[in-house]
Each structure stands twice: as structure tokens, then as C-alpha cells.
């Protein structure tokens, strides 16, 4: 067997390991940072892979396969396990037949998540063993062990990664041409194990507790829980990526590296603790290990030194080390100047030529400003660097969500949020005009419309929440009209039961489904409404309008996402009706399927600099001086002419029309008129509003 050496992300390594372990069925719902696991698995032969409608379904599919006797896996982001919690707990009770591994990819630091919950608690909560790799090699090795462990102990295994493990690439050595052994599918009837009525479930609980005892004993001898001997003064307990940071910072310390972090190897921890003078736990987020170790009666420090909020880094661990007197005090960032030794080091490592200095222009500039010797380090977050303009993510040029979000903003806030009561004639900050819409939103690309310049959304909590929350506001007696906005994938994920609730409980909510025919936010995965499966093959397509009508919504509309007037008029019509409505706003995501068309341009002599078009939030629109121009390399044209539709002076036309000096398209003042009706101010271009906090 040939061994290959490759740079793989944790997710890729995990997929390769699962393939080598003979996984037969893998089901997932996309979610950063877990998505690439299933994407990679879909590339291997002999594995059934699916994008499920949501994580609960995904885990149930995997559980079914596992009870059918084959190895199965389900992967999801941390919040996905909330959705899948019910079958997760259930699987712990029934146990398995073929190995079952549940991968939870957590996101400390919230690189692209709505919270940073610590899913290690799920292992204790559901009474299942948990493994945590600290690089890609371990991700590969451990996932293979996870399947074996699952079968040996008749339990699902929680495999927990974090963003830095899932997305960082590190070196993996693995067999190159291994032909995996895939088990035979065979279901063996065993109702007292697989049918959880109380009478059968009671003995299963006892079996679960016995299983935990056996697992705790196994954890003591598990080869990946290991001591790395070092100076006895300091003993570090760590797992996951935190182990890497800690190794870097406390290079001389003794280490207990934990890989099976639940159940904890209590004796091993005790032995380690008694061999060192001071025990410090370095872990991200909650004091999960720390609390358990303290419960063993061992004096231990952790969260008193390292933050409970956000992700760790070498810097943060170093700071904690200093706080705890484990490291010498920091060299002051002020006046540190250039360090000669680091040049020396770089030369030794062979990285840098010895004689590369400033070029002539730079010398000139340097003599004007003597090279900043002795100034403070410019870090993001301090001084001049902090004042640089931010670059938050934005909707793409030609995004099908722009026009609808623009229309919602116009129908929503009277004006951009006043910063103080005074500024708005005594009104409360954020107060709305009585006829303004409230927009409960959901999670997807369209959530970016909460930012400048669209400022169109009022809530976003978790996937599928928009519809139920809109109904709740209505039932609470809110006088404003409430509109729910939800993406197509999100609607299918968890929106459907809430829409049924609206019908059943006689709500009159208007639900806008933004149908871009893909799961765009996480990288354009297939979903049922798109009719493309995880391997990119065509499959049965679920028709959203039929689905809504089938539920009992009578007022169903399908509108063109790029027709601002139609979108706006339909929303106004629906909210006025005394019945629930669904508006499917349909338009392709340009990143995904559309070929770019001819770009638009602004006829400069007609532009009076009112900036109305900038409100659309298209990054191709650029203000130059007092006027707006369109970057022809960014504008996608084609279906999209949204900026042209909102320009009150009709100054935006196809680029070729400007060159040919042809007059622009016919009048498009309909929207402006409808805005006057609802009291909007078409010129309230809000470059004056406070910048929303950077958040994804």
C-alpha cells in the first residue's frame, strides 16, 4: 500500500477517512464550516451522499442506514445539531447496528454564524462519546476510529471540529489506493432496542449508563489521549486547535493532550495533575474540560486566564499565560521598533534575501517620515489602521435579492434610524411610521440587506424563524404590518411547518420567499426546489408555488426578482389583503447560473447626483465626484437593470446606448409614485446613518 502525503483541510481529511472507513451513507445540510465534508464525500465512489432538507432529516437518514447495518455519517454546523437534537438523543438510546458518526463543526469567533454555542455539551447531554481532532491528520485517523468505536460500544459518536480544524490545511499521510470494505446492508428486527416505547426505553437508559462506564474505562487507555512530558512546573490540558496554540506558546510545559474529551479519562487526568505543579486548561469557549477536572477535586485554572467569548489564538493564549504569570511580561508594543534578531532569524531560515531594502520612491517618502521607527505597531484595532474603511460582505452585482430588499426598505422605515431622540423631534430611536412594514427575516445571503445601504430587515434569529415570528407579532397585536422574508432553501429547511401554522391558526402574514434556486450563502449547494442533488445530477424538483397552495395558501404570487415595480406592488397588494399570502420572488443568482450580459452605464449629463441608485446596494455602482458611474467589469447586466429602474432621471442605460447616443428606455416612474403613496422619501440616501456593527 502506497502512502501519500497531502495538504488537506480538516473537512477533506475527514471525508477521506470516512471513505477509507467504508462509510456507505452520508447525509448533511450545508452550513459553514461543515459544508465541504459532504462535498468531498460526493466525489468518492460507492457512497450514497445527499443534501437533506435539514439537519434533523440528515441525521435520521444516517440513523436509518446505521440501523440497516452499514456505516453512516451525518455532518452539520453547530446550530444544525440543535435542529437534529431530537434524533441525536434518540440514537443514543437505540444505539446502532452499523457505525454512526455525527460531525458537528463549531464556529468559535462566529466567522459565519449567528451564535458560538459550544457543542461539546451535547456529548454529555446525550451521553455519547466525543472525539476532537487537532489537525487534519488526526481528523483522518480519528474518523476511522470513530466508526469502530461506534460499533464496539453500540453508540453514535459525536465528532467535533471547529472552524480552524475544518478549514485549515495541514499535512496528511494516508494510503493512496485503499479499497474500502463496505458492509452489507441487513436489518435485524429488535423492537425492544429500536422501538422506544417507555417499556422498552427504560432498560435502554440503564444500558446507556453502563455504556458510559465502559467508555470511561476505554478513554483511560485510548491511544490518542496522551501525555507529552515536559517541565513539571506547568501542566497544560488541551484539545482541538487550542492544543496547537498552547504548544506554540508554552513550548517547555508538560501536556495532557485530550482527544476523547467525553467521557474524560479521570485517572489519566489525576496522574497527570499529580506529576505537575500547576494545571492549566486551555480550551475555546466554555470551561467544559475545566469544570469536569475541577469536579474530580483537582485544583485547575482556565477561564480565569483565557476568554470564554470568541476563538483563541496564539496571541490570546500568550496573553492568558502572562496574566497567570506563566510567561514573562510582554515587550511593550510602544517603541518596540524593528527587531534586528528577526531579520537574522529569517536569514537563517533562508527565507529572505539579505539585502532587500527600500526602493527610491520609498526612500523619498521615508526621508519625509523617517520610516516610523519607534512608532506603535499598526494593528487592526488601533490607531490609523482602525480608521481604515471596513470591507464588510455585500450582495453581489446583479443579486436577485436587491430589488426586493430595496422595496422593503422603502415600505419599512420612515428614514434611517435616528441616532437620538432629539434628532428626530423627540421620537424614540428606530421608531417607525405607523404604516411602515416590519420585516422578520431569516438566514441566507439576503440577511446582508440588514447593512447599509439597504437597512431593510428587523429580525434574524435562526433558520426558519421568520414566519413564526411574523405570526407571533401579528397575534401580539402589533399594529404595523409584518412581512416574513425567507430564502428558498431556508423555507424548505424549516419554513414549511411555520407556514402551515399560519394557515391553521388563521394568520394573515405575508411571506416572501426569495427563490434564487440555490443555497447561495454556503456556496451554491443543491436543494429540493432546485432539483439538483449532492452529486450535481438532476432530480425531482419540488415546486414551491404548488407546495404553498397545497398547504392552503390561496393568495400565491410568483414575481420577477428584477422587476422592482412588480415586487413592490405585489407586496403592497398582499399586505392589504385579510388573508395569508405567499410571494415567490424568483430570479437566478448570477454567481451560480447566469452568464453576464451587457453592462449598464450612467449618462453623466443626466445624473444629478441624487444617489437613489446607490440605495440598491449594488457594488458595481460607484460615486465619482458628485455623480455615479457603473464599473463595467462588475455590472452583470442581463436580467438585472434594477439601478436603471430606480433612477428618477432615467440616466442609467445600456453602455452601448451611451456610445451610440441613443435615448434611454421608457419612463419607469411607477415606483417613485407608489413610494409617495406610502410617504417614503425617495432622496433619503443614507450615507449619513451610523455604520452598523461589523457582523456576519
Amino acid at each position: 500500500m502506497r502512502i501519500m502525503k497531502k495538504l488537506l483541510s480538516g473537512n477533506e481529511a475527514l471525508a477521506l477517512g470516512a471513505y477509507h472507513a467504508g462509510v456507505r451513507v452520508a447525509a448533511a445540510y450545508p452550513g459553514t464550516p461543515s459544508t465541504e465534508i459532504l462535498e468531498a464525500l460526493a466525489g468518492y465512489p460507492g457512497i450514497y451522499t445527499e443534501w437533506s432538507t435539514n439537519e434533523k432529516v440528515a441525521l435520521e437518514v444516517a440513523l436509518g442506514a446505521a440501523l440497516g447495518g452499514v456505516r453512516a455519517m451525518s455532518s452539520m454546523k453547530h446550530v444544525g445539531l440543535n435542529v437534529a437534537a431530537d434524533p441525536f438523543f434518540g440514537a443514543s438510546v437505540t444505539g446502532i447496528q452499523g457505525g454512526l458518526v455525527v460531525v458537528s463543526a463549531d464556529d468559535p469567533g462566529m466567522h459565519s454564524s449567528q451564535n458560538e454555542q459550544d457543542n461539546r455539551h451535547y456529548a454529555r447531554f446525550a451521553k455519547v462519546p466525543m472525539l476532537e481532532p487537532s489537525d487534519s491528520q488526526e481528523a483522518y485517523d480519528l474518523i476511522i476510529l470513530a466508526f469502530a468505536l461506534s460499533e464496539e460500544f453500540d453508540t453514535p459518536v459525536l465528532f467535533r471540529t471547529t472552524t480552524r480544524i475544518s478549514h485549515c490545511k495541514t499535512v496528511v499521510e494516508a494510503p493512496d489506493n485503499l479499497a474500502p470494505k463496505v458492509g452489507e446492508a441487513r436489518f435485524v428486527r429488535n423492537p425492544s432496542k429500536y422501538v422506544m416505547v417507555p417499556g422498552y426505553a427504560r432498560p435502554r437508559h440503564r444500558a446507556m449508563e453502563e455504556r458510559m462506564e465502559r467508555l470511561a474505562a476505554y478513554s483511560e487507555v485510548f491511544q490518542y489521549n496522551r501525555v507529552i512530558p515536559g517541565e513539571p512546573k506547568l501542566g497544560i490540558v488541551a484539545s482541538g486547535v487550542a492544543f496547537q496554540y498552547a504548544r506554540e506558546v508554552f513550548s517547555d510545559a508538560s501536556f495532557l493532550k485530550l482527544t476523547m474529551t467525553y467521557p474524560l479519562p479521570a485517572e489519566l487526568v489525576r496522574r497527570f495533575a499529580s506529576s505537575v505543579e500547576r494545571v492549566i486548561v486551555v480550551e475555546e469557549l466554555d470551561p467544559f474540560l475545566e469544570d469536569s477536572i475541577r469536579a474530580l477535586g483537582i485544583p485547575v485554572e482556565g477561564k480565569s486566564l483565557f476568554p470564554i467569548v470568541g476563538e483563541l489564538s496564539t496571541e490570546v493564549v500568550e496573553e492568558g499565560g502572562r496574566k497567570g504569570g506563566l510567561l514573562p511580561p510582554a515587550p511593550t508594543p510602544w517603541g518596540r521598533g524593528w527587531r534586528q534578531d528577526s531579520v537574522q532569524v529569517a536569514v537563517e531560515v533562508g527565507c529572505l534575501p539579505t539585502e532587500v531594502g527600500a526602493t527610491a520612491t520609498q526612500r523619498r517618502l521615508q526621508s519625509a517620515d523617517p520610516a516610523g521607527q519607534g512608532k506603535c505597531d499598526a494593528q487592526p484595532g488601533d490607531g490609523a489602521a482602525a480608521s481604515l474603511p471596513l470591507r464588510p460582505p455585500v450582495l453581489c452585482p446583479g443579486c436577485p435579492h436587491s430589488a426586493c430588499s430595496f422595496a422593503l426598505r422603502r415600505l419599512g422605515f420612515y428614514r434611517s434610524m435616528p441616532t437620538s431622540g432629539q434628532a428626530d423631534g423627540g421620537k424614540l430611536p428606530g421608531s417607525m411610521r405607523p404604516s411602515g412594514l416590519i420585516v422578520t427575516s431569516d438566514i441566507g445571503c439576503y440577511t446582508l440587506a440588514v447593512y447599509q445601504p439597504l437597512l431593510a430587515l428587523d429580525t434574524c434569529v435562526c433558520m426558519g424563524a421568520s414566519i413564526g415570528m411574523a405570526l407571533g407579532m401579528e397575534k401580539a397585536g402589533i399594529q404595523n404590518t409584518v412581512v416574513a422574508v425567507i430564502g428558498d432553501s431556508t423555507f424548505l429547511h424549516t419554513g414549511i411547518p411555520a407556514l402551515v401554522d399560519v394557515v391553521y391558526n388563521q394568520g394573515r402574514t405575508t411571506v416572501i420567499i426569495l427563490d434564487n434556486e440555490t443555497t447561495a450563502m454556503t456556496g451554491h449547494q443543491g436543494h429540493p426546489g432546485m432539483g439538483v442533488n449532492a452529486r450535481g445530477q438532476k432530480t425531482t424538483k419540488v415546486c414551491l408555488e404548488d407546495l404553498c397552495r397545497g398547504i392552503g395558501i390561496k393568495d400565491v404570487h410568483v414575481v420577477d426578482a428584477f422587476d422592482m415595480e412588480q415586487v413592490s406592488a405585489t407586496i403592497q397588494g398582499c399586505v392589504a389583503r385579510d388573508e395569508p399570502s405567499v410571494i415567490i420572488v424568483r430570479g437566478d443568482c448570477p454567481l451560480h447560473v447566469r452568464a453576464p450580459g451587457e453592462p449598464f452605464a450612467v449618462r453623466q449629463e443626466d445624473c444629478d447626483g441624487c444617489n437613489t441608485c446607490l440605495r440598491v446596494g449594488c457594488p458595481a455602482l460607484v460615486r465619482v465626484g458628485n455623480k455615479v458611474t457603473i464599473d463595467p467589469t462588475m455590472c452583470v447586466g442581463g436580467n438585472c437593470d434594477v439601478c436603471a429602474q430606480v433612477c428618477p432621471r432615467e440616466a442609467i442605460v445600456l453602455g452601448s446606448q451611451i456610445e451610440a447616443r441613443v435615448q434611454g428606455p421608457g419612463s419607469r416612474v411607477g415606483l417613485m409614485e407608489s413610494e409617495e403613496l406610502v410617504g417614503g422619501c425617495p432622496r433619503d440616501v443614507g450615507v449619513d446613518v451610523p455604520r452598523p456593527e461589523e457582523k456576519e
Partner: protein
Amino acid sequence: MRTAVDVLMVGVGGQGTVMASDILAEAALAEGFDVKKSDALGMSQRGGSVVSQVRLGTKIFSPMVKKGEADILLGFEKLEAARWAGHLRSHGLAIINDQAIPPFSVSSGSEKYPPDELVLDLLHRKTERVFFVQGMALAQEAGTTKALNAAMLGFLSVLIDVINKGAWLESLTRALPARLLDLNLVAFEMGRQAAEAARKPLERGT
């Protein structure tokens, strides 16, 4: 004593920053280094800032470059380079593509793009070794602005001399689709020449 070379690549979604860092990492692996790399993924596709970190050396623990420890900052865009200047170590090497991509707050007129003087000033607080590269012009000359990352890597390849040219070429060949390879190899070569030219007067001066 430090045993790693830390490279930070920063740019804007769509500039090919992540691919460039992959090519560097693969080349370093082929040269026998331990390599770890980390990309800020997530929403970078939507025109946000992109940061890729590559660490190579005999044995690497953390996959992340520590603030103030980056040996090299490869900036694909000036504002992003300025933003990350503080991550350079003292006397580190800054290689900056001389291109400005205004973020929304600038293109909508509510904020100003930092002037070159400020960008340089921020870099000069950490290092005197700042190179501006006409990356877009080089890529254009090679045939497509999409080859910007290859041109930047070409420039880098001259200054990071622990990786042989052969390893670079192999890594480029593996990463790029065949139909784009030739253009990119031309851009890479042009980047190399630009680096040699930038380096010459200095060598003569000492």
C-alpha cells in the same frame, strides 16, 4: 528561536488570494517543509476582505500567523495591505499590488480610500522593505487580469528563496486548469522579472 516562515496573503474576494496561498503551500510541501495554512472563508465570496495565512518550517503547531510575526505580507490590494500591516514583524517584507478596490463605504462616498501616503506610512511603521508591484499591468500584459495572483507569486518566488523555481512551476501546473496555465506561467515569469529588477538597484547600493 523561530523555525517558521510566516506568510500573510490579503486581498478582496475574487482576486485569487486563496488560490495563490494554496499554490505557495503546495510548493512548500513539495520542498519538504511542514506546512499549515488557514483561509478566512465564509463570506469572502461576497466581495469582503480575504486573508490567507501560510506557515512553513520544520514543525508547525498553530495554523495561524501571530500578530506582529508575519515575515511576508503579500497584499493583493492596497487598503487590505494597510489593514494588515500591523501583522508584519519588524523588518518584514511587504509586497503590495498597486491596485485600489474601493469598498462600499468609499464607492458610495461616505468614506475616503486611504491615500498612498497613509498606506505606506502604516507599512513603514513595521518595515522599510516595501515593494509596490504593478500586478494588474503585468497580468494584463500576460493576457488576462485573472493572472494577477500568478504575477504576484512570481514576484514573491524571487524573494522567498527557500522554494525552488521548479517546485513553484509544478505547484502552479497542478493548481491551474490546463487552458489557463500558459497565460499564468507567463504572468509568473513577468512577476519574477519585476522582482529581479526591483532588487538590483538595492544590491548595487550595498
